[in-house]
């Protein structure tokens, strides 16, 4: 419902502002496929590696080995791979999410948690490298610790919020 209202208001507002709505839409949509084509190779590479990792049984070995760690932290062991790759690569994190959707269904508690964790955090190291790299800054001072603590906040609050919204896992 909110989306329907949003779209209605957006199109009306754009029409009043004399925006060529149709051609603006087409122009924006034309960027979608190149974006996906750029995403596909990385996504495929990681999906491939993750699928092999799961099918070979190596994943079960790892999750079993990590079970005490995740129990101590109170985090589902199936979420650890996502948390491990999230700060480095968006496509790798999406591949992990896709893998969870495939194995447990998109609406399973673990998938909902993974979605929130992915959606509320960023590729911290990539962002830092990109922006500081653009101006040749080497001494980044408090930036990286602050960004990592804020990611930690998003993980903890995300998991708590999921319990509130979707119930316990």
């Amino acid at each position, binding site marked *: 419902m909110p*989306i329907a209202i949003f*779209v209605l208001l*957006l*199109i009306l507002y*754009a029409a009043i502002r004399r*925006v*060529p*709505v149709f051609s*603006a*839409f*087409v122009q*924006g*949509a034309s960027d*979608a496929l190149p974006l*996906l084509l750029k995403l*596909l190779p990385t*996504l*495929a590479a*990681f*999906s*491939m*590696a*993750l699928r*092999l*990792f799961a099918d070979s049984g*190596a994943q079960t*070995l790892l999750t079993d080995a990590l079970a005490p760690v995740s129990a101590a932290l109170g985090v589902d062991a199936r979420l650890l791979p996502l948390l491990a*790759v999230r700060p480095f690569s968006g496509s790798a994190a999406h591949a992990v999410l896709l893998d969870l*959707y*495939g194995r447990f269904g*998109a*609406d399973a508690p673990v998938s909902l948690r993974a*979605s*929130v964790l992915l*959606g*509320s*955090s*960023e590729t911290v190291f990539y*962002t*830092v490298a*990109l*922006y*500081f790299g*653009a*101006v040749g*800054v080497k*001494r*980044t*001072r*408090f*930036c990286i610790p*602050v*960004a990592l603590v*804020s*990611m930690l*906040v*998003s993980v903890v609050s*995300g998991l708590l*919020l*999921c319990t509130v919204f979707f119930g316990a896992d």
Partner: protein
Amino acid sequence: MNAVFSILLCVSAAVLIVRGDGDALLASLTAGAGDAVSACLSMSAAYLVWMGLLNVMRQAGLMRMLSRLLRPVLRLLFPNANDAQEAISLNLAANMLGMGNAATPYGIEAMRRLNASNPHPGTATDEMCVLIAVNASCLELFPASLVALRQSCGSLRPTAVVLPTLLSSLLASAAAVVLCLVCIRPCRSRSSSCC
């Protein structure tokens, strides 16, 4: 990433070989790549819709409107940003609307302008750190691509995650801002350049 990828492949292959099931390797690899292809294909419909709507939003001036709304807050966060002010507000507005691709050029432009008045080139200024910390905590009003991915994977409630995601990223952004201010405060009182 190279290390992660190589380790994943090697460990899995080793486990398969130990189990005497080496033939399954190629099937798994192909199936995995197939997952990515079908996800991209089914996501493409949602991407077409959202990227189209986002461009209508941009041309209708919603991004500029949001960036104007943000400006008073940004003046507090970036007191010495001078001519980088506009690029910063456009960068954050684009990020909030989920237009990551539009946000990056503004962000880099903002960094260039901040660097132009940097008294110690090579060392980050307060403003740069705040800008990046806020960018790295990703405040997004509507996670369109996440919803698209969920939809393409057959979710019955693709938008169920929107509210918790928004709240959790709000908290993360707030934490980033507060931490930055805490880190900056002692430096400023001890005059010009420390840390």
